[in-house]
């Protein structure tokens, strides 16, 4: 049924989850008819870290998550789990996940996903550039006895 390979769908779901809910709503305001299979509902996911960064897992703490599963009129099912408590965000992302498996995929990839990716890259790049400007450039002073 799925016309999307897992890595492509995986990437799309990541972009949808990380998008600001308001931005996603602006890019894709009108949801087509769909049935709710589960949720949208708010819960928590326990985030794990690793001892020493690379070792055995431990529980770092929870984060809030909203999730939703939907079915389009054509029968295609979509799922989404997104950070935060915004049920509308989870629902919109689930509908988009479903639509991306239909023939509307190409249009939505251009209109929604490409825009989200461009904006996300710009935001990340901005922070990375500011961090880079704080990198220390060491220099050594010539000591008197060596002069």
């Amino acid at each position, binding site marked *: 049924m799925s016309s999307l390979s*897992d890595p492509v*769908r*995986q990437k799309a*779901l*990541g972009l949808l*989850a*990380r998008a600001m809910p308001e931005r996603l709503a602006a890019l894709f305001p009108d949801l087509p008819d769909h049935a709710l299979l589960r949720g949208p*509902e*708010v*819960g*928590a*996911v*326990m*985030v*794990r*870290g*690793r*001892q*020493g*960064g*690379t*070792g*055995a*897992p*431990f*529980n*770092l*703490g*929870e*984060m*809030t*998550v909203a*999730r939703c*599963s939907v079915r389009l009129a054509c029968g295609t099912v979509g*799922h989404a*789990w*997104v*950070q*935060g*408590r915004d049920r509308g965000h989870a629902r919109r992302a689930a509908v988009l996940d479903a639509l991306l498996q239909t023939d509307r995929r190409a249009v939505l990839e251009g209109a929604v996903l490409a825009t989200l990716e461009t904006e996300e890259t710009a935001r*990340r*790049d*901005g*922070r*990375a*550039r*500011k*961090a*880079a*400007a*704080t*990198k*220390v450039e*060491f220099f050594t002073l010539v000591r008197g006895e060596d002069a």
Partner: protein
Amino acid sequence: MYVAVKGGERAIDNAHAFLAEERRGDPAVPELSVAQIRQQMALAVNRVMAEGSLYDPDLAALAIKQARGDLIEAIFLIRAYRTTLPRFGASNPIDTGRMAAVRRVSATYKDLPGGQVLGPTFDYTHRLIDFALAAEGLTPPAPEAAPLGPVPRVTGFLDREGLIEAEPASDTTPPDLTREPMELPANRALRLQALTRGDEGFILSLAYSSQRGYGRTHPFVGELRIGEVAVEVDIPELGFAVEIGEITVTECETVNQFHGSKTQPPQFTRGYGLVFGQTERKAISMSLVDRALRWEELGEDNTGAPVQDPEFVLMHADNIQATGFLEHIKLPHYVDFQSELELVRALRVNSEASE
């Protein structure tokens, strides 16, 4: 024995109304928005998320507003809220090696790949009150430079030479103190969970005590990094893992001397700190306390220092447990006190009679 008494309802309602008014303060002063707190009191928000053990900046900001800036009260609100949430699952362990770091410093290597990146730090500020902040104004944009890309882990350099204890990955499911009451002895995974949500002041003071000689830690900060990491969860209905969001974390790895034992050659050992948000003081403190608590597995001496006592550390690190037990003594104990009063009176009568 507890005896129920009624009364005080009107007083309680009026006290809460008074609280609401005091919280708002002078209506002539503009009200704080949750977004303002989230954006401009970000480090307070981070502390509430870390010790509330729930990553949600909007909720933490709201809790701070409700608590009138009392961060432990705000943490209490977050802890209470999180108990109402169904647990959807657990994430795959976050990969801090792939962190988009805004800050990364090492006290052990000056010229390391990726360099010393200071980021938005209070270090090297003069700690002089900036009266210019009392006036409204625009902040000029921070300077920019070509991005640096991912930076390698400092302990990785030592690991390659075998100079530091290995930290082999595993997929063991860690114990969770929010599901099963903490029992001692606690393994390192459980200790790390208790420390990362523990009170910053308590963990800081314990770490400081270990530096001053109460339990020996002589750490170097091998690496301190702050930045965003992806959180990935295996979604059962999809059958693969998806990034559900990004969180900011602070990670500290200390490098400590170790003289070796019968089975191990001399090498460096590790202390580890990982905390939600930009929470540098807490992450460094956590790594020192983690290392101090490892004395037994490393065959070191127990000097009887508080920081080496897992029961002392773990049973007193939680500021919500501590607050609950401490503050309950201000609630009515009329009957308990009456019985003590009668006892003291009776003892006095007896001692006067025997004189």
